[in-house]
């Protein structure tokens, strides 16, 4: 698609794209290219000489059980965060979609957590469930749970998942509500006239019509869990205890901070780039086709 009415100028359009192009080339492509090049190089222990090693850095990574564990952990976290947040948000959206009194108030009261930054989410949750002073920890201990996420890796993981899912409820709720409101009322009424009770209407009519939204949100939630949980993890557990809450992004960060292996750190970045490309690709394919149902 192109405009018919246009301006004639040789230099002006270049001047107009120049600022964005400059930033993109200096701060996006140049570092990305650096990461790719670096990932094929190996530096000796003193940083004196570098040699081209093909895919050795990548092979080393995949042979490293710690990296493999981080991959599995990141996918498990993403799945848990997406499923818990999506199902809770869907329940709320279905309730809010009814013609209730105060429905705009409900919406306002449910969407604000979108604006809370991940590190703040981490701080709020770590305080609430802190082993020695957390308010909820008292009740957990009273119920006989030996609650100590500072020592117990599984509990720390659960804490991260809960906090991350909490933040994402508002986003999912908004998109589910929009999806539900776009379903024609006549379809639902037709099902009701045919004698379908609410639960059955939801299962056989609403849920299938909502499938494009669900799929879209699934991808968005996975991207969120991969990248935006960094701030939550950094304030809550810093990847610990042990490495129980270290995701791929967090690992790139800590490995880089320690400063050791540049090639390995670069290879990790490149693997993350590939993951983003795949996820964005899926997302755009979906936007084009709108998923058939």
């Amino acid at each position, binding site marked *: 698609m192109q405009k018919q009415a246009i301006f004639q100028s040789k230099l002006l359009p270049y001047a*107009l794209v120049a600022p964005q192009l400059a930033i993109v080339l200096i701060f996006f492509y140049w570092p990305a290219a*650096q990461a790719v090049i670096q990932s094929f190089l190996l530096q000796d222990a003193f940083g004196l000489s570098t040699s081209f090693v093909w895919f050795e850095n990548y092979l080393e990574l995949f042979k490293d059980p710690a990296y493999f564990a981080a991959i599995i952990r990141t996918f498990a976290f993403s799945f848990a965060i997406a499923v818990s947040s999506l199902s809770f948000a869907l329940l709320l959206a279905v309730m809010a979609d009814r013609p209730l009194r105060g429905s705009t108030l409900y919406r306002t009261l449910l969407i604000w957590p979108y604006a809370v*930054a991940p590190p703040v989410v981490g*701080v709020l949750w770590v305080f609430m469930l802190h082993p020695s002073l957390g308010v909820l920890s008292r009740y957990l201990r009273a119920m006989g749970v030996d609650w100590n996420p500072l020592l117990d890796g599984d509990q720390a993981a659960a804490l991260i998942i809960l906090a991350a899912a909490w933040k994402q409820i508002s986003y999912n709720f908004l998109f589910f509500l929009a999806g539900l409101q776009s379903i024609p009322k006549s379809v639902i009424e037709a099902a009701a006239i045919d004698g379908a009770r609410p639960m059955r209407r939801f299962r056989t009519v609403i849920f299938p019509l909502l499938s494009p939204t669900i799929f879209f949100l699934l991808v968005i939630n996975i991207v969120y869990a991969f990248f935006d949980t960094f701030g939550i993890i*950094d*304030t809550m557990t810093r990847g610990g205890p042990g490495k129980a809450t270290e995701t791929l992004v967090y690992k790139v960060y800590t490995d880089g901070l320690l400063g050791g292996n540049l090639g390995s750190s670069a290879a990790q970045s490149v693997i993350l780039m590939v993951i983003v490309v795949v996820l964005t690709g899926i997302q755009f394919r979906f936007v084009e086709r709108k998923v058939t149902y």
Partner: protein
Amino acid sequence: MVEEEGFQRYLAHAILWIGIAIVAFPVYLAIVASTQDNAVIANGQMSLLPGGHFLETYYQTLFVGTSGSTREPVLNMMLNSLVMALLIAVGKIAISIISAYAIVYFRFPFRMAIFWIIFITLMLPVEVRIYPTYKIVADLHLLDSYAGLSLPLIASATATLLFRQFFMTVPDELLEASRIDGAGPFRFFWDTLLPLSRTNMAALFVILFILGWNQYLWPLLITTRDDMQTIQVGIRKMITTTDALTEWPVVMATALLAMLPPVFVVVVMQKLFVRGLVETEK
């Protein structure tokens, strides 16, 4: 109208209120904690009702900071965050709208190549290029500066796409009319296109401001001086690993101050926020 039984309606209200309670509880706790005495909190004896230290805590937080690790007033951190968020939001909108204008209203060699170069940055979030970008910013001597905080985040494929899409829907007659009036590319942009884009810009601004204010990883890496840190970074430094030293009322007050501006924007400009959110994701 589909039947709506009384019981079901009550159930819907109840579930929504439970949802709101779950969403709000951690924040309620923060409000309560920020008004209580640190010694009581540290003992695990925190009450679920507000205490009497409100003024004291917020005065200390805003103007003094914690007495331990970072003695930096939170007000200063908030100013840093504000400058960064505004630079990111305004910068992204400004450079995106003029690139979109060039791509839609001009024909020039490499037009589509440039479009794709901008578009592909969608797949290069800061998380995947952390250290190489850090090195470039360090080489340019931009560490601990507002330019370093904002410039590497300022390109925006989504904003460019959005403006491009919007410009495509602007009728050609408008351009022809203003050309008859003798307007050149600058006049047309300023007098016609910009006023038409106002709502789009506002919706985009709301989203970008929130994203900018909430940046964490990047400021964490490139700010070393206490007086340059943003509030999101400052709050993490307040939680010391030796728990005994963490001043929880101040930490909670800082958490609340950190969420105040973006939450305010979402609640007050809800229509624009929802619009911006839906449009930027497509």
